C-alpha cells in the first residue's frame, strides 16, 4: 500500500462515521483543552509568583532577630557579626530599630499610631531596591539627615501629608522591663513618599510606616543607658546560597541558639515548594485527562474493530497484510488525535482568554507579609507542542491494542461471522 492510501482510506471511513468520530474527537479535544488551560495557568501563576518573590524577598539577605527576648541585640552585635562572618561572603551588615509611635501632621489634630523604622537608607535601599522608589519627593542617595523622614504611601494619604510637609512623631522611651521613662516629641520633614508596594517586611507594613535616620530613632526610643539597642540586623550576602548556609552558623554557633537567623531565601523556597506542589497537582490533572482521552479513543476503536470484522476479513482475504491492517487503524487514530488536538487547542485558547478576562487568578498568599498576586495565564508554545505530542503519543498507544486486535483477525473466521 502507498503511504498516502492509508490516510485516504481512513479519511473515507471517518467521513462515513461523522457522528461517532466527532464524539471521539471531542473527547480528545476536551482533554487537550483542559491541558492547554492548565499549563497556561500553571505557567502564568508560576511566573507571577516568581516575580512577587523577587520583588519582595531579597533572597541574598537574612535577618537576625530576637523573638523571645532572651538577649538584647545592640550595635555590638553588628560588629560581632562583621568580625565572625567571612568578609568575602557578605555585602553589608546593617541594624534596624523598629518602634511604635504616634504620628500626625504638624498643625493637625488627627494622629495615627504606626511603626517607625530607623535604618540607614544607604544600606536598605540595596537590600530592597524595588521598594526604594518615590511617588513624591526625592529619596536620598545616602543616609537620611537626622531631621528627615520618608513616609509610606498609605500613611501619607491618611494624614494628607506631601513631600516637604512637617510631621510630628511622639514616642515613648521604655526601660527593659517595658516601663515608660519619658516621652519624646519631634517634628521632622517629609522628604519623600514611597510608591504603594503592598509589602510587609520584617513585620513592618511598608505602606503605613515611617523610615527615619537610624541615630534619630535611637534617641527617640532607647533609654540613655541602652542607646545601642536595636530590633534586628540585616545581613546581605553575595548570594542566596551563603544566606541559606550561614543561617544556622549565625543562629547556633555565633549566638548559641539565643537569636533567630532567617534567610529570606528560605521563605522564597517555602513559597516555591507550594508552587511546585500546586504544579504537580495540575500535572496529575493533565495526565488524568490524557488517560481519559486515550481510553475514550481505545473504547471507540474497540467497538469499531468489532463492527468492521467482516471488512477486515474481506480485505485480508483480498491480500491485505496484517501489518497493513494495523497501520490502517493506527492512522485512523492518528487522524482522530490530530483533529482533537486542533479543536482542543482552539477551545483551550478560548478558555484561557475567558480565564484571563474573568480575573479568576487573582489571589493573595499570606506569608509573614502579604503577597498580592495577579497572574495571567500564559501560553508557552513550546509546552503546548510538547503536551500535544504527549496526547498524540498516548492516543496512539491506547489505540495500539484495538489496532493489533484488528490486525489479528483471521479472514476465515471473520467471513464465517454472520
Amino acid at each position: 500500500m502507498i503511504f498516502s492510501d492509508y490516510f485516504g482510506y481512513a479519511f473515507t471511513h471517518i467521513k462515513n462515521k461523522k457522528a461517532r468520530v466527532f464524539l471521539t474527537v471531542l473527547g480528545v479535544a476536551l482533554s487537550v483543552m483542559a491541558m492547554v488551560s492548565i499549563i497556561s495557568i500553571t505557567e502564568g501563576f508560576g511566573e507571577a509568583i516568581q516575580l512577587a518573590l523577587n520583588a519582595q524577598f531579597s533572597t541574598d539577605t537574612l535577618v537576625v532577630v530576637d523573638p523571645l527576648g532572651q538577649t538584647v541585640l545592640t550595635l555590638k552585635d553588628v560588629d560581632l557579626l562583621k568580625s565572625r562572618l567571612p568578609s568575602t561572603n557578605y555585602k553589608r551588615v546593617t541594624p534596624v530599630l523598629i518602634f511604635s509611635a504616634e504620628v500626625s501632621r504638624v498643625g493637625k489634630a488627627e494622629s495615627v499610631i504606626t511603626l517607625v523604622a530607623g535604618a540607614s537608607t544607604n544600606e536598605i535601599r540595596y537590600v530592597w531596591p524595588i521598594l526604594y522608589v518615590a511617588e513624591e519627593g526625592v529619596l536620598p542617595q545616602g543616609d537620611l539627615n537626622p531631621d528627615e523622614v520618608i513616609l509610606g504611601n498609605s500613611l501619607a494619604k491618611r494624614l494628607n501629608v506631601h513631600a516637604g510637609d512637617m510631621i510630628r512623631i511622639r514616642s515613648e522611651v521604655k526601660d527593659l522591663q517595658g516601663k515608660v521613662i519619658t516621652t519624646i516629641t519631634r517634628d521632622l520633614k517629609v522628604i519623600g513618599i514611597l510608591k504603594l508596594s503592598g509589602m510587609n517586611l520584617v513585620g513592618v507594613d511598608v505602606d503605613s510606616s515611617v523610615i527615619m535616620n537610624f541615630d534619630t530613632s535611637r534617641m527617640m526610643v532607647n533609654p540613655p543607658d541602652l542607646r545601642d539597642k536595636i530590633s534586628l540586623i540585616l545581613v546581605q550576602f553575595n548570594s542566596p546560597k551563603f544566606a541559606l548556609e550561614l543561617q544556622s552558623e549565625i543562629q547556633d554557633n555565633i549566638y548559641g541558639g539565643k537569636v533567630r537567623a532567617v534567610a529570606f531565601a528560605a521563605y522564597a523556597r517555602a513559597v516555591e515548594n507550594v508552587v511546585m506542589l500546586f504544579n504537580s497537582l495540575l500535572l496529575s490533572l493533565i495526565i488524568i485527562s490524557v488517560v481519559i482521552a486515550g481510553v475514550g479513543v481505545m473504547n471507540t476503536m474497540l467497538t469499531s474493530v468489532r463492527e468492521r470484522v467482516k471488512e477486515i476479513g474481506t480485505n485480508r482475504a483480498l491480500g491485505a497484510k496484517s501489518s497493513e491492517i494495523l497501520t490502517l487503524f493506527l492512522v485512523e487514530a492518528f487522524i482522530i488525535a490530530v483533529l482533537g488536538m486542533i479543536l482542543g487547542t482552539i477551545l483551550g485558547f478560548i478558555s484561557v482568554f475567558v480565564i484571563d478576562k474573568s480575573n479568576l487568578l487573582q489571589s493573595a498568599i499570606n506569608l509573614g507579609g502579604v503577597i498580592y498576586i495577579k497572574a495571567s495565564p500564559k501560553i508557552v508554545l513550546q509546552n503546548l507542542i510538547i503536551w500535544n505530542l504527549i496526547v498524540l503519543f498516548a492516543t496512539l498507544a491506547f489505540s495500539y491494542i484495538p489496532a493489533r486486535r484488528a490486525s489479528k483477525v483471521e479472514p476465515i473466521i471473520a467471513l464465517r461471522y454472520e
Partner: protein
Amino acid sequence: MIKEVVKLENVDKIYKLGEVEVQALNNVNLTIREGEFVSILGPSGSGKTTMLNLIGALDKPTKGEVYINGVSLKKLNDKQLADLRLRTIGFIFQAFYLVPWLNALQNVMIPMMLLGKPPSYRKQRAMELLKVVGLEKRAYHKPTELSGGEQQRVAIARALANEPALLLADEPTGNLDSKTGAMIVDLLEKINKEKNVTMIIVTHNLEVAERTRRIIRLRDGKIIADEVKAI
C-alpha cells in the same frame, strides 16, 4: 503441457469443536489446470467450503500439501500468503462482502490499492472492470443502493482487479434469485473463456454446477466423483 494451477496432495482437514474432532476433508487429491472451469458440488457439510479455503490460502490443511502454481503453501509465511492472495487469487463470496461505506468504484479499487498501484491507474481500471460487469453507471453507488445481483457483479469486478490466475467463488449465486444467479454464472463463464482465468465455483446447486465443464462431487470430505464434460 498445461500448467497445474491447483494441486491438493493427500489433504486432510480436521476441525476441533471442543472435545469433538470433525473431519472436514479426508485424503483429498486433486489437480486443476490453467483455464479450467470447475465446480465443486456437494450438500452442506460436505467440506466444499473448507476445500475452497485451503485452495485460497485462507486456511492450512491438517495433513497433506496444497500447491498453487507449483508452490507449496506450507513453505509460505503469513505475509507471503497474503501476497499470494493479492496477486494470484480472486475471491467471490456468497454474501458479496463489499465494504459498505465505500462505493462500487472504491470497492473495486481495494485490491489495486493493496498492490500499491497509483490512484489514476486504479480508477481507470476499476471503471473498465465495472464496464465488463455492466455497472459503469452504478460506479458511485454504495452497496446498500445496489441490488444483490449488482453487488455480486461489483464483487466479481473486484476479484478481477489484479488479474488473478485463479478465481474462487463460494456459492456465488446462493443469495440471488435463479434468474440473477444464471446471469452471474454467464458472466463467470464469459470471463473464464475470454481471459482464460482458472475458475472454481463451490455450489450445492446442480443447475449451477452443470454450467461448468468439470464437476467434482464431494461427500463427507471425500471426492466421490470427478466428471469432465466432453466439449
